[in-house]
């Protein structure tokens, strides 16, 4: 795996006179809109009644990338997505928000390991000279929610990673100060670039797309990259079974009766 050449934002990528340009990659996936109707037949999701949208956590990642670009007065934000090319319309929203281009990485792959491998291969071939200073991902997808791809991607690229970041500061000297929520508190971390960061809710408030943004987004490039080597899946997924959480609710007549019900069932400990 290629090693990054730069260790800070202002290490020039080429020894030419051009000003250094910060490169930021954002990995985005498409998920079913949670307002969709989820039906299952033959052990798989019935996609006919599903609308695909950008994974909500990936919008926090993209917003962070756009804010970094503004903070440093320039740079290029490229969105990478392991998706079929039919996903390009949904992915254009990232261009309307302000990303500079979209790269769709096509390829067979269903589990996190295959997705991380395809993204890693696409990133290393796209940025042939040096990996981007910052690679941002969402903490997890809202469909499968395994939260595995960002850490796997970082390890495949030989980069450090910090997952589920809720605050991101600094970066001027190539070092970020980050916060991550942990059980009962928060961790304050420092990390030097290049780095893979996954975004938690609360990191920022993603900007809304404006009519002008949508118009400009139409003119920006969506490129298709195919031919990533196919890795064997490491996890197999069996049939999906619809689940119901429905219970038979016992209604209490008033607050005191409710407390009594809990007391009788031995739930007050």
């Amino acid at each position, binding site marked *: 795996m290629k090693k990054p050449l730069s260790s800070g934002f202002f290490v020039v990528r080429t020894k030419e006179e051009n000003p250094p340009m910060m490169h930021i990659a954002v990995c985005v996936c498409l998920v079913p809109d949670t307002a969709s109707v*989820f039906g*299952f037949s033959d052990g798989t*999701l019935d996609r006919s009644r599903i609308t695909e949208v950008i994974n909500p*956590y990936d919008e926090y990642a993209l917003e962070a990338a756009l804010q970094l670009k503004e903070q440093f007065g320039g740079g290029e934000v490229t969105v990478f997505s392991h998706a079929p090319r039919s996903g390009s319309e949904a992915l254009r929203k990232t261009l309307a928000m302000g990303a500079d281009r979209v790269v769709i990485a096509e390829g067979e792959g269903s589990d*996190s*390991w295959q997705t991380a491998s395809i993204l890693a291969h696409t990133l290393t071939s796209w940025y042939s000279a040096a990996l981007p200073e910052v690679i941002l991902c969402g903490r997890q997808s*809202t469909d*499968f*929610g*395994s*939260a*595995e791809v*960002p*850490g*796997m991607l*970082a*390890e495949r690229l030989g*980069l*450090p*990673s*910090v997952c589920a970041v809720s605050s991101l500061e600094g970066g001027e000297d190539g070092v970020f*100060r980050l916060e*991550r*929520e*942990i*059980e*009962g*508190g928060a*961790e*304050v971390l*420092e990390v*030097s670039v290049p780095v893979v960061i996954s975004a*938690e*809710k609360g990191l920022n408030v993603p900007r809304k797309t404006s009519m002008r943004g949508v118009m400009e987004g139409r003119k920006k490039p969506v490129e298709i990259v195919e031919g990533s080597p196919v890795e064997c899946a*490491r*996890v*197999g*997924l*069996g049939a*999906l*079974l*619809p*689940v119901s*959480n*429905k219970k038979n*609710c*016992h*209604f*209490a007549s*008033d*607050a*005191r009766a*409710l*407390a*009594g*019900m*809990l*007391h009788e069932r031995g*739930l*007050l400990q």
Partner: protein
Amino acid sequence: MSNNTHGAEGQGCSRRLIVLEQREGVLKSTSVDLWHRMQMQCKGSGLSAVLLGPVDKENPSLQLSGPGVIHHACDERLRRYDPRLYRRIIGELFEEGGFSELLFADTALSRDLAPALSVRLGASLLSRCSALPEAGRCHRRLYSGAAEGTFVASSPRAIVTVSPSSILLQPATEFLPDILPLAVPAAAHDDLPSIVRQVVRREGMVDVAEAGVVVAGGRGMGSAEGFALLEELASLFGGAVGASRTVVDEGWRPHGEQIGQTGKSIAPRLYIACGISGAVQHLSGISGAGTVVAINRDSHAPIFEVADFGLVGDVGEVLPEFVAALKEFLKMQ
């Protein structure tokens, strides 16, 4: 999954390595629970575990019962999570010990560590399993809880992270595990790519993802001040306060307390939802809860469909009465 890894006899327990986690010198309750669930599944055959960093409060072997060995690297450098050292120590122990399965409780730490380790060890990764895997298979809720998927490891090695359960096991064995000291390699810390500088604790409250009782509020609470009632209610049980997404987006409560799709999944034995209508995104976070109690003004709120006990009423009016009644019952016990 190869047959020798998950054979019928004791689920190949001797080849499974449990990662026990401490934070700030305290062994995590989710780790203790994972150890005891493994004891149950392995029926007395010795377990292996690794614990990184010192434990100050109580000797770890006194909190964990049942036979086995704990490889304990009791080094101050491991008190805080150090991604590189943790990966290296756990990875090397796994390789040298000839293990085939690595188990974590699903925590902030395992979510950071497990994906990278799975690449390093060439292992299948089964995340957030709803229970210990059986024969290399585990289950997880998908699509906001609308479906359950069965995941199967296809590599000879697997890393498994297990979600907390609402049913805590009471260990019933006299054996205590042996503690074996584990040496820590000298770290090359010349160019640290990432380091934990500081851990900020929120004082006083149990975390919503770990609490045995969770009391949560939604838009029906009316204001940030309305949550004082919920704090009082939670304190009766030594529980935690949680919040719906609306409440967090309004800024009434911090994101760390949010339950649901863009928040935390919880597994308390008792969950009390106050003024929460029960959007599908919220319900996906409470599928692991034991008994569910709902209080809401709207008798048609979807939260009542997943509740065991319900009360229709305005939370502002019924909660003070509910708290008073609970206090009386608790005094009687």
